């Protein structure tokens, strides 16, 4: 033993290194385990548990004994697909599945375009730009409950609602309208709300990319006689391709999953019922947790299918170009 410690051989040195590595790994596990426990216990396990619940009959009565809930096969899924709130029944009543997809795509694209315009405005030097940038972040940072109710108050059906007053003043409408309780109008307003609230996220990411574009490319384009529009089309936009693709995916995912906004603005009524709100209604209004879980799984399946398609096909095509 003493001989070994006095004259370290290759083997013992490796062993010591190894034990140091092992020590480090133990340390790492100790440091990360509280986080891992919370995230696995409260997110990943429930996510899998949700699959299980979606095949069981779980109501308020057996919620405390959920692990023994009776197995019902695909019944919950069948019930959701046949539910009038879910399925497409023609143009008068879209159902939550179609509404969700339409709402998510339109809102995401509108958010992206608004964010792009905002970032182009802020990319131009002017006095008070820092201030303007801070103000542009307001809608995204403010609590959702506050901004949703301010919008409802602006769109109030009474004559003291601002939009009613403005439109009546301009002679566009004669009588006050209940905008958020009108099929069609409500969906459009909810989409505009989404763009208003979430464009700052797109703006910040685009702005960061814009400021990294090599200025000499614009000079070269100018020498070639390109006007501002052509410069934007041929220099700026190609440079932004990746960041736009990434924002599109993130925003699409988050919008598709979003519950608060529509629930607070319309409660899911008047042609704005989307899958997260429907999940809530099944679970906590009808207390049919199995059906709620099935709805959530359908939501996740649609989302996953789209992501696989997007990452596999769209992103790859961009790569090959």
């Amino acid at each position, binding site marked *: 033993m003493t001989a070994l410690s006095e004259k370290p051989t290759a083997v013992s040195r490796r062993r010591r290194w190894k034990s140091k590595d092992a020590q480090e790994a133990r340390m790492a596990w100790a440091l990360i385990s509280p986080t891992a426990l919370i*995230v696995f216990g409260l*997110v990943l396990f429930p996510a899998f548990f949700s699959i299980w619940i979606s095949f069981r009959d779980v109501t308020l009565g057996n919620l405390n004994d959920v692990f023994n809930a009776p197995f019902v096969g695909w019944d919950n899924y069948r019930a959701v697909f046949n539910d009038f709130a879910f399925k497409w029944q023609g143009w008068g009543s879209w159902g939550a599945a179609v509404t969700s997809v339409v709402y998510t795509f339109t809102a995401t694209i509108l958010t992206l375009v608004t964010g792009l315009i905002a970032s182009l405005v802020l990319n131009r030097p002017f006095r008070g730009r820092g201030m303007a940038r801070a103000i542009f972040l307001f809608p995204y940072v403010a609590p959702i409950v506050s901004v949703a109710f301010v919008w409802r108050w602006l769109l109030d059906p009474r004559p003291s609602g601002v939009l009613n007053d403005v439109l009546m003043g301009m002679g566009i409408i004669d009588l006050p309208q209940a905008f958020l309780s009108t099929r069609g109008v409500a969906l459009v307003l909810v989409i505009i709300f989404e763009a208003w609230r979430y464009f700052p996220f797109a703006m910040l990411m685009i702005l960061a990319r814009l400021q990294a574009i090599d200025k000499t490319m614009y000079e070269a384009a100018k020498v070639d006689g390109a006007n501002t529009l052509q410069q934007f089309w041929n220099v700026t936009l190609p440079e932004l391709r990746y960041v736009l693709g990434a924002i599109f995916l993130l925003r699409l995912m988050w919008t598709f999953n979003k519950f608060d906004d529509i629930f607070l603005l319309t409660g899911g009524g008047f042609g704005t019922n989307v899958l997260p709100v429907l999940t809530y209604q099944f679970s906590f209004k009808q207390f049919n947790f199995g059906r709620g879980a099935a709805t959530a799984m359908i939501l996740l399946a649609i989302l996953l299918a789209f992501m696989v398609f997007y990452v596999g096909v769209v992103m790859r095509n961009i790569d090959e170009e």
Partner: protein
Amino acid sequence: MQNTQENKNFLDHMASRFSLQGFIFAITLTFFLVSILFPFYWMVSSSFKTRAEIGGREPVYIPGEFRLEAYQELLDPSNPSFQNFGVNIWNTIKVAVPTAVIAVILAVLGSYAIARLKFKGKNFMVNAILVVYLFPGILLIIPLFSMLARIGDTIGFDVQDNLGVLVFTYLAQTLPVALYMLTNYFRTIPDEIEQAALIDGCSRLEVIWRITLPLAVPALVSVAIYTLMIAWNEFLYAFVFLNSHELFTMPIKINTIWNDPSPRPHVVMAASTIMTVPIMVLFLSLEKYLAEGLSAGGVKG
């Protein structure tokens, strides 16, 4: 002569073009500023109006004078329709501050391990934690609710009306972002300083405490503020998990006041102002540090 003429035309042309661009720019900027600021102005100004001004035949764009009617209803116990909003403010603080503090502590430990230490299963762990971003809150709330109800039954706590349970669910929502942001920050701190301290005989925990943390203060502050904001604003979980008015956080209480049979938008706007102003002040005073975190997903959703 010809030459100057041409020059002049050119200049005119440039001037007109530039002013057109400037014009479009000014219009766009004004449009953005107005459509962003007006709702916020409307929130604050409505909160100072009387019930008569709120329910009149047309909107009152500038309140006649600062009336505290709405705030009295929220906070003054002698008001006939007293809402006891002070309790709701306190509940929100009781949920948001512990969430932020615990999230920062746990995320520091975890992200240090990810950024600095080698261990098996690290990539799996990091990816598994980030996958959380994919799961909608609405999908998790059903299994969480039934799971916690079952566990609560066994150990003996209530799932409903328990602010502690709420803190736990918020931690699950905020830890992944906190971990991600802090890991990225720790990676920017040069490893050499830490190695030197280790060679000098400091233990890992001493290194974290004496060297890494002091260098990471800006990141710690921004992670704390993000988690605070998420917990402060959270609606869905609080809405499902809380039943008793005494335990409502501000967002749930505001929703309740709005849905009251007698509509009182000025009271809702006053409560919203109380909830929004601290967050906005906090954010604006630290905007320089925080803006970057926003695009890293600091505010999910």
